[in-house]
């Protein structure tokens, strides 16, 4: 078991004929992901990287029975691509997972897309502006996104993070203490996104493969505080946390559109404090995440 994406999940790529889409579709196939097709309007009937291209998501899901889609569509069209995918999964199959990698989608487009997805109970959106989701397998696995596949290994640690490269750092830290990952999810750094921390924690809590969780936050908003409060009451598995941006000045957007301290709210200190109050073991330096995790595993009798 893993969460949301099984090792053999059937995956589509929206924007597969574009430069980004084609490059990453190739990397996903190399990793062992079961890519069953791509979607680019107007290019249906072609074949790319050995998989068929469809004109629409409805056609693609009807033909392939796909479980998930990864979106590499440019920002002006990505909001609509999410809505198209949500509609297609719901009407053709009743269920599906949408991963949107695209960075730079207008916030009001995301407000619309997020509301559309929220009205479809069995459709899940991860991202946008995220590295994606990966479920490592014994050999290969399902890599739905832009993360470097080779740093991962199948295991029992669930990882959830707002940031891309910091997620890779967390993966490397688990590997440094000989632990693999069940599923790693980047929820993205935009102010309005799909799946949040709490839904990830909830899924990890009920996933038998996951025995401990690493949660990486960053400045801006209060999703980390809410997740910590939820975890305190609902999570039995050990959680280890880090928050990026303790040195970020207020009022300045730090790369990610959502990473901004506004009106003195959303600071790293606030978030670390919320983590600690919830019994989450914190690392102040991400290179210590491995050791903090090891200590938590020992304390829980898991090592």
């Amino acid at each position, binding site marked *: 078991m893993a969460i949301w994406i099984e090792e053999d999940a059937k995956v589509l790529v929206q924007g597969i004929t574009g430069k980004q889409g084609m490059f990453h579709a190739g990397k996903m196939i190399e990793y062992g992901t079961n890519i069953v097709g791509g979607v680019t309007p107007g290019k249906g009937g072609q074949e790319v990287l050995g998989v068929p291209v469809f004109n629409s998501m409805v056609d693609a899901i009807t033909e392939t029975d796909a479980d998930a889609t990864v979106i590499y569509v440019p920002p002006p069209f990505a909001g609509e691509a999410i809505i198209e995918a949500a509609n297609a999964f719901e009407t053709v199959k009743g269920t599906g997972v949408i991963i949107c990698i695209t960075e730079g989608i*207008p*916030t009001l487009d995301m407000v619309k897309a997020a509301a559309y997805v929220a009205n479809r109970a069995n459709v899940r959106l991860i991202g946008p502006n995220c590295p994606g989701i990966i479920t490592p397998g014994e050999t290969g696995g399902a890599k739905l996104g832009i993360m470097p596949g080779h*740093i991962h290994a199948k295991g029992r640690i669930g990882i959830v993070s707002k*940031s891309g*490269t910091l997620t*890779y750092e967390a993966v490397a830290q688990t590997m440094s203490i000989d632990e693999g990952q069940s599923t790693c999810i980047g929820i993205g*750094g935009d102010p309005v996104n799909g799946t949040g921390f709490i839904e990830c924690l909830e899924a990890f809590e009920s996933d038998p493969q996951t025995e401990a969780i690493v949660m990486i936050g960053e400045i801006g908003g209060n999703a980390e505080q809410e997740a910590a409060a939820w975890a305190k009451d609902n999570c039995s598995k050990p959680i280890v946390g880090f928050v990026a941006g303790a040195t970020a000045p207020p009022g300045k957007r730090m790369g990610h*559109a959502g990473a901004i301290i506004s009106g003195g709210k959303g600071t790293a200190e606030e978030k670390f404090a919320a983590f600690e109050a919830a019994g989450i073991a914190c690392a102040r330096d991400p290179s210590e995440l491995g050791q903090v995790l090891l200590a938590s595993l020992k304390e829980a009798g898991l090592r």
Partner: protein
Amino acid sequence: MNIHEYQGKALLKAAGVSVLEGVHCTSIEDALAAYDSLGSKVVAVKSQIHAGGRGKGTMLNPQTREEVMQGGVKIAFSREEVETYATNILGNILVTIQTGDEGKLVNNLYIESGCAIAHEYYLALLVDRENKSVLIMASTEGGMDIEDVAHNTPERIHKINVDPNAGLLGFQKRDLGMALGLSGSALKSFFKMLGSMYEMFIAQDCAMVEINPLVKTEDDEIVALDSKISFDENAEFRHKTWDELRDLSEEEDVEIRAKETGLSYVKLDGDIGCLVNGAGLAMATMDVIKLYGGEPANFLDVGGGADEEQVKIAFSIILEDPKVKGILVNIFGGIMRCDIIARGVIGATEALGLDVPLVVRLAGTNVDEGKAILAASNLNIHPADDLAEGAQKIVSLIGGGE
């Protein structure tokens, strides 16, 4: 992206929101001509900068930094007063609670007619991250700092969330107006104003519209007396007019140049430059430098697909800051390959004649090739295996920390 009050008011007016007559000026002569043309005995003379707290700020001489005048927004009761205030404001520095100690040079002035105010309110529209929708927030406590109102008298703040599918509905506008104690023609005026403002918020891809104060005049009309508007930069591709509204003098020159080359750079006050891939890791790198006793000089995210040329530009931007005494490069290669970064680092070091200590931490894709390239270069580059080691090395190399 922020715009000035006078620009925001032009947008509001075009959208159908009532604002007072006003004229944008850049000289004392303009200001006097504006006073004559407005035909209002009493006018407001308002400094235009991208920061709040202007009224309670201080005007300083840019050379001597001596105080010229208290307040960056003044009410003038005569032509002579307009001249005095315009002289004291234009070309001088305005320091407010939001500008920091250095303050901001004022090049733009807004001369605005007066009006008879019956009550002041607060109104803001913004994207609510938690509810993933547009939030409208209003309060009877106009003219005050909303953070203080939220802290001291939260019951005086009224909120509505707009369902993106349904849009802003009539009952919501009415409820909010009534919560503010409005009735009769003032309520009607509020109802119409809020509809227009919401439409503008959506049409212009705003990130925030804040009107403090929004006023009820003695004639029961609802008027936006101030305007603070910011746009969602992700939507720039569909707003050709934003280029004209952008005031580059309000933005850090180096941050603009970084953005043009696909880099995300924010200048800070420390002396250790950082070059990192990924926003989260870039923040974490700054944090860890601080944790080991150093001070980061900048945030710099080279992004996921930087090439040798971008790495070189990133180095030159970091080195423009004379305070930089050392540089920490921290790359976790995913899509980006460590060998490419290593070549970029060597190219930049040679081209720029780098003379400050350089610590390079590489991990991820092609890490062994990257490390080998650096080791074979005979340049004075200090390798590190993880972030903590990298931060400790650079801090000790520049002689900082404990």
